């Protein structure tokens, strides 16, 4: 049992190492120039060399991403509950939401810059805009697909619509909600980095843009690695919270795994 578990923990590290090894070997075998594709060693070299500015800009990106993401959680949850609970709102708003989500967010950034100027605010808003949609859709789905029997148990007691939403609808939608957070957090990074590359004075996206314009390609790749790392960390946090709150949805299986892990 313990052996199986430790294998599960090691697997992602080994897969990552293999990926880096293939990358390193390919660069070496095909003799690729560093300004086309730097090797992992060159990339990590840049990561160490420019540690100061990377750390500063990574913190900025993390801040804008998490802020936008938190706004998306609140807004997405409230809108999702409303859309899921009311068939009329669902029909009224769904086409609008789909249309809105189809707009490439990179096209919105210049407008945000017009309104708010260059800097942190457009990045936060872009992160928010790109990440609230999956939350709305998931929460709405969780509530709208409520089993009629669950509803009837409460209705037969004379429960009001709000009671049914509070006691059954929202709790039942929680697994959907947490699943959507895992998607939304990675999208939020995409949003803030897009905004930073277009219009910002700081952040990983800005750093990468600067680095590529001066052909410091290893530094560009170091930026990519940092974003990927931050994304994985935030995803892991979301996953832990999910297991904590919705262990019932997996009938305790995830909880057990969690327990043996500790």
């Amino acid at each position, binding site marked *: 049992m313990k052996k199986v578990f430790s294998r599960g923990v090691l697997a992602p590290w080994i897969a990552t190492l293999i990926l880096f090894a293939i990358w390193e070997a390919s660069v070496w075998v095909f003799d690729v120039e560093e300004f086309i594709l730097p090797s992992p060693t060159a990339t990590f070299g840049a990561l160490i060399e420019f540690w100061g500015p990377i750390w500063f800009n990574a913190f900025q990106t993390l801040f804008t991403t998490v802020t936008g993401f938190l706004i998306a959680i609140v807004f997405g949850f409230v809108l999702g509950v409303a859309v899921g609970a009311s068939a009329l709102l669902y029909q009224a708003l769904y086409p609008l939401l789909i249309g809105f989500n189809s707009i490439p967010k990179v096209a919105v950034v210049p407008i945000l810059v017009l309104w708010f100027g260059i800097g942190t605010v457009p990045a936060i808003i872009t992160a928010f805009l790109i990440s609230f949609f999956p939350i709305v859709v998931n929460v709405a789905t969780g509530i709208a697909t409520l*089993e009629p*029997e*669950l509803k*009837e*148990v*409460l*209705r*037969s*007691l*004379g*429960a009001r619509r709000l*009671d049914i939403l509070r*006691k*059954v609808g929202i*709790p*039942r939608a*929680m697994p959907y909600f947490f699943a959507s957070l895992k998607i939304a957090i990675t999208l939020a990074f995409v949003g803030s980095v897009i905004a930073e590359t277009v219009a910002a004075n700081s952040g990983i996206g800005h750093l990468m843009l600067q680095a590529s314009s001066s052909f410091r390609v290893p530094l560009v790749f170091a930026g990519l690695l940092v974003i990927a790392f931050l994304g994985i960390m935030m995803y892991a946090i979301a996953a832990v919270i999910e297991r904590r709150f*919705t262990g*019932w*949805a997996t*009938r*305790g299986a995830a909880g057990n795994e969690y327990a043996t892990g500790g």
Partner: protein
Amino acid sequence: MSATINIEGASLSYGGEGGLLALADASLSVNRGEFVAVVGPSGCGKSSLLKLVSGLYPALKGSVKVNGEAVTGPLKIVGMAFQNPVMLPWRTTIENVLLPLEVVEPHRGQFRRRKKEYRGWAEALLETVGLAGFGDKNPWELSGGMQQRASLCRALIHKPDLLLLDEPFAALDAFTREELWDVMQALWQEHKFTVVLVTHDLREAVYLADQVHVVSNRPGRIIHTRHVTLARPRTLESTYEPDFVALVQELRNHISEARQAA
């Protein structure tokens, strides 16, 4: 306390006028504290009768009265149990049992204050159905029979005057089902609420009821009523005695007629 039911010439259709007619001109009256069973071929509208009485669906024609008053919506004096136990998986068993008290007046307003007392009620009920000590388990950790017991407790926690049972034992294995007949009989003899039990199991109907109503094929109407005067408490041994067997046989013939009439 217990309730009386008077249904006169009631019709019910799903999908409004011109929809599928489930009940046509059905009449039924139930005295205070009586245990009534409704049997009939499957799909004959037995469950629709319960939906009328509970106020979940309005009658198309005719009148439905509980305690002499016309039913216009869900009644808080009603407890319901279904074929599926419909436990909320994110709540423990005892929290599931307590659910009606969080919804029904006057308990909902006092729930926080009297929570300890209410938990005492729930624990006592769980004990009478043989689930002492299982309150803190998750419902999905219980067997189907245990979940159905818990669902009976939930139907009874707010001390309803009228218990509506929609084939609650149908999905259980024969031994568990017979065990639960006794549980049901004991609960009824102790509390003397009015019960309407919908079932397709004739032995179950004869075992539990004072009166058995046979419903015709869709659209359902009551074609036969049989008083059951066997002594109480009835035991499993008594189900093999000639009186009991003859009654079941007689009802069986009525059901056959009802099926052929279609």
